[in-house]
C-alpha cells in the first residue's frame, strides 16, 4: 500500500514541479520581454479572453477531479481492513503506547508483528487524543478517548520501523514514540509464546467478568437479568426503541461504560455504569472475552465453566459490582 501512496505522491510532485516551472517560466519570460523601456510607457490594453478563462478553468478542473478519483479510491482501500487480520489492541495514554496481543502478550512502545500478514489495530485512548503514525507504512490514525478507531497495514520487510504519536498530546508528546518490530513468522511465533504466562486477553477478560460480577446478570442462558452474551459479537441487536444495532466493538464498549445509551429490547435499565471502574485495557479484555463466547460449543470456554455454581442468583453481589437485585423481565 505504501508503494501505491508513493506513486500518487510522486505524481503530485511531478505535477507541482511542472506547473511551478511552467508558470514561473512564463512570468520570467513576460517580465523580461515586456520590461518597461520608457518611463511613461503603458501596457497594451487587453482585458481578457473568455476562451482562455475557459481553458484554464476546465484543464485544472479535470486534473483535480482525476487526482480526487485516484486518491479517494486508494483511501477507500486503506480505510477498509481485509476480512482476515491479525488483531492487536492499542491503548494510548500520556505518554506511552500499550499494545495487547489477543493471546496474552502485552508490550509498551514496541509492537511486534509478523511479516506479510494483515495486521489490524483497534485503538483507544485513556485520556486525550493521540495518533498512531508509522511513516514507513504510510499509515496514520487518531486514537480517541471514548471510542475505537482502526488502522491496518501489511508489513512487507522485516525490520524496525519508527512509530510516532502524531497528534499533540501535552508535555511529553515527542517522547510518545516507539517501534514496530516486523519479524519473520517463525520468529514472531517464538516471540509470541515467550510471554510470562499472563493468560490470553479473553482469559483476563473472563477474570474481570467474574470480578466485576457481570456474570450475575449476563448468564449463559436467557434466565439472567441482562441479555446473554453468548454468540453476541457481530450479531444484530434489537433495542427497546425498535432500532437495531450491530454488536461491534463500539457497541460493547458503550454498553459497559454507558449502559443506558442503547437498551436491549425486553430488558430493564438496571445495569450501572462501569465508566471509570474498568481501565481501557480491561475494556478491551472484556471485549475479547465477549468475542470468545461463541454460540456453538457451550462448554468450551467461559461462562458455563465456572461462576454460577458458587453463587445464588439474586444473592448479595460482590463488592466490585454495584448491581442491585432485580426482577427479570421476560423477553
Amino acid at each position: 500500500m505504501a508503494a501505491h501512496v508513493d506513486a500518487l505522491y510522486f505524481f503530485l510532485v511531478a505535477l507541482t514541479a511542472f506547473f511551478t516551472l511552467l508558470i514561473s517560466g512564463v512570468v520570467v519570460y513576460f517580465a523580461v520581454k515586456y520590461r518597461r523601456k520608457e518611463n511613461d510607457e503603458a501596457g497594451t490594453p487587453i482585458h481578457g479572453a473568455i476562451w482562455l478563462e475557459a481553458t484554464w478553468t476546465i484543464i485544472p478542473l479535470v486534473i483535480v477531479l482525476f487526482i480526487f478519483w485516484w486518491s479517494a479510491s486508494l483511501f477507500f482501500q486503506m480505510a477498509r481492513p481485509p476480512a482476515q487480520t491479525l488483531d492487536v489492541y492499542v491503548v494510548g495514554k500520556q505518554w506511552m503506547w500499550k499494545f495487547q496481543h489477543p493471546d496474552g502478550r502485552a508490550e509498551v512502545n514496541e509492537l511486534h508483528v509478523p511479516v506479510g500478514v494483515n495486521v489490524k489495530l483497534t485503538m483507544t485512548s485513556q485520556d486525550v487524543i493521540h495518533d498512531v503514525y508509522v511513516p514507513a507504512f504510510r499509515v496514520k490514525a487518531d486514537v480517541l478517548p471514548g471510542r475505537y478507531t482502526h488502522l491496518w497495514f501489511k508489513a512487507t520487510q522485516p525490520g524496525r520501523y519508527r512509530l510516532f504519536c502524531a497528534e499533540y498530546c501535552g508535555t511529553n508528546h515527542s517522547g510518545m514514540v516507539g517501534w514496530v518490530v516486523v519479524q519473520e513468522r517463525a520468529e514472531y511465533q517464538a516471540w509470541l509464546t515467550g510471554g510470562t504466562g499472563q493468560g490470553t486477553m479473553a482469559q483476563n477478560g473472563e477474570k474481570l467478568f467474574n470480578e466485576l460480577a457481570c456474570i450475575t446478570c449476563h448468564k449463559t442462558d436467557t434466565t439472567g437479568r441482562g441479555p446473554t452474551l453468548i454468540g453476541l459479537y457481530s450479531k444484530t441487536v434489537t433495542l427497546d426503541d425498535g432500532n437495531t444495532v450491530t454488536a461491534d466493538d463500539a457497541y460493547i464498549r458503550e454498553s459497559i461504560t454507558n449502559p443506558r445509551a442503547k437498551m436491549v429490547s425486553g430488558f430493564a435499565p438496571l445495569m450501572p455504569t462501569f465508566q471509570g471502574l474498568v481501565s481501557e485495557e480491561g475494556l478491551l479484555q472484556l471485549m475479547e472475552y465477549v468475542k470468545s463466547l461463541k454460540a456453538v460449543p457451550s462448554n468450551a470456554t467461559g461462562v458455563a465453566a465456572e461462576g454460577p455454581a458458587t453463587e445464588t442468583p439474586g444473592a448479595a453481589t460482590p463488592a466490585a459490582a454495584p448491581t442491585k437485585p432485580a426482577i427479570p423481565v421476560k423477553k
Partner: protein
Amino acid sequence: MDTAAAPHSNYLHDGYTLKSWLLTRDHKRIGLLYLFGVTAFFVLGSFFAALIRIELLTPAGDLVESDTYNRLFTMHGVIMVFFFLIPAIPAVLGNFLLPIMIGAKDMAFPRINLLSWYVYVIGGTFTLTALVMGGVDTGWTFYTPYSSAFSQSNVALVVVGIFINGFSSILTGLNFIVTVHKMRAPGLTWFRLPLFVWAHYATALIFVLGTPVIAITLVMVGAERLLHLGIFDPKLGGDPVLFQHLFWFYSHPAVYIMILPAMGVMSELIAAFSRKAIFGYQFVAFSSLAIAAVGFLVWGHHMFVSGQSVFAAMAFSLLSYLVAIPSAIKVFNWTATLYKGSISFDSPMLYAFGFMGLFLIGGLTGLFLAALAVDVHVTDTYFVVAHFHYIMVGGAIMMYLGGLHYWWPKIFGKMYNEAWAKVAAVTIFVGFNLTFFPQFIVGYLGMPRRYHAYPPEFQIWNIMSTAGASLLAVGYAMPTVYLLYSLVKGNPAPDNPWGATGLEWKTSSPPPTHNFETPPVVNEPPYNYAK
C-alpha cells in the same frame, strides 16, 4: 518631522497629541494604530519562532524544557494567526485604503472602527497576560479534551483573549461591507472597484459569518474547563471530535481571511507595475467570492485521520479540490496580465513576483493534502507546517510587505531607499524558501510536527531550516530599519510615485483628513492605463 515639501494639511498633521491618535475616528489613523499593534505582535511571534528554530537545531530537546517548547509553538501560532495574520492586511492596509479607493471620506461607522481597534488591544492584553503568567500549551488549535480537561496552562485566559479579539474582526467586517455598499463615489459601479476592494469585501463576509463560530466554540471550551459542562470530554459525555468540526469551520475560512486580502494586494501590484488592466477582471473578482463561499465547506479536510466517516472525508476532499480552481484562475489571470505589459521591477513588484512563486508552491502542495491517501501520510507532519507557511507567510506576509511598500509613500508621504528594499525582498524570498522547503522533505520522511525532540535522521533538514530562518530574520529586520528611517530622512513622495491608477493616487501624499479636497467622481473603468 520636516514637512515643508507638503504645504497642504494632511491627516498626520490633524493633531499631534496622544489623545488625537487614541480618540481618532479617521480610518487612516486607525489603520496606523493597527500597524503599530500588528507589528508589535509580529515581533513577539517571530521571537518565539526563533527560539523554536534554535531548539530544533539538535535532535535532543536541550535548549528548553518540553513544557516550555510546547508553550513556544502555541504562543507563536496564537499570536501570529489571531493577532498578526488575520488583522494584518485588512485592518492596516484595508482600513487605510478601502475608503480612499472608493472615494469616501471615511468608513461607514468611524466610531465602530475605532472600537474594533480597542477590542483588538483588549483581546491582545488578555493573551499577553496569559503569556506573562506562563503561557498556554495546547497548540493554537486548542484540541479537546486536552485543552478542556488536561492542560495545566492558562487556557481560559487565552481563550477569552481570542474571543474578545474576534469581535474586532466582526466589527471590521461589518464596516467594510456597509462602506462598500453605501459609500462608493458617484460613478464607481461594482465592476469599477479595484480588485483590492473586491477581495476585502469577500474577506469581510468571512469575518462576519465565520468569526462568531470560533467565538462560541472557544466559549464552550472555557465552559467545559471551568464549569465541567460535558461538551467535548468523553468522560463527561461529550464528543472530542465535535470540537474539531466547530474549530475548523472557522479556522479553515480564516486561512482565506489571510490569503484573500493578499490576493487583492497582488492584483493591485500586478496591474500597477505592468501599467495594464488586470486580465479577466470579473473572473478575478468573482473568484474571491467563490473562494469565500466554497471555503466554508471544506473544513473536514483537516480531519481525514480523525475518525470521521470515509464518505464525509471524500466529500470534503472533493470540495477542497473545487476551492483550488478559483485560486488557479487568479494565478493564470495575473500571469496573463503581464503579457504585453510595461513591467517595472520596483520593490513592491519584486514582492509580487515572490508571492507568485511561493503561492504556486503553497497552493499546489495543497493538492497533496486534499488527496486523501497522501494526506494520511503527511498530515500532522512538517509537510503541513511547510504548506501552510507557504500560504500564510509566503502568501500573506509577502503581500502585506509588498502592499506596505507600494502604499508607504501614500501613507506617510515619504520615499524609502529603493535599493535596500530590493535587497530585502530578495533576502526574504531566499530565506523563506530555505526555511520552509526542507520542511516538505522532512515531513514526507515522517517527522511529526510539534516535536520538541526528534530522531537524529531528521537533523540535516532542520539545520537547513534554521539557517534559512536566520536569513529570513535578517530580511524582516531590514524593512523595519529603512522604512522607519524614511520617516525621518526620506524624500517627500509625489502624489503618484508609481504612475498607477486608482483613486488613492489621485489625492495627495499623505491624503488630507477627509481624503479628497473635492469629492471624486468616477467615469472610467478600473486600471485604465491606456488613455
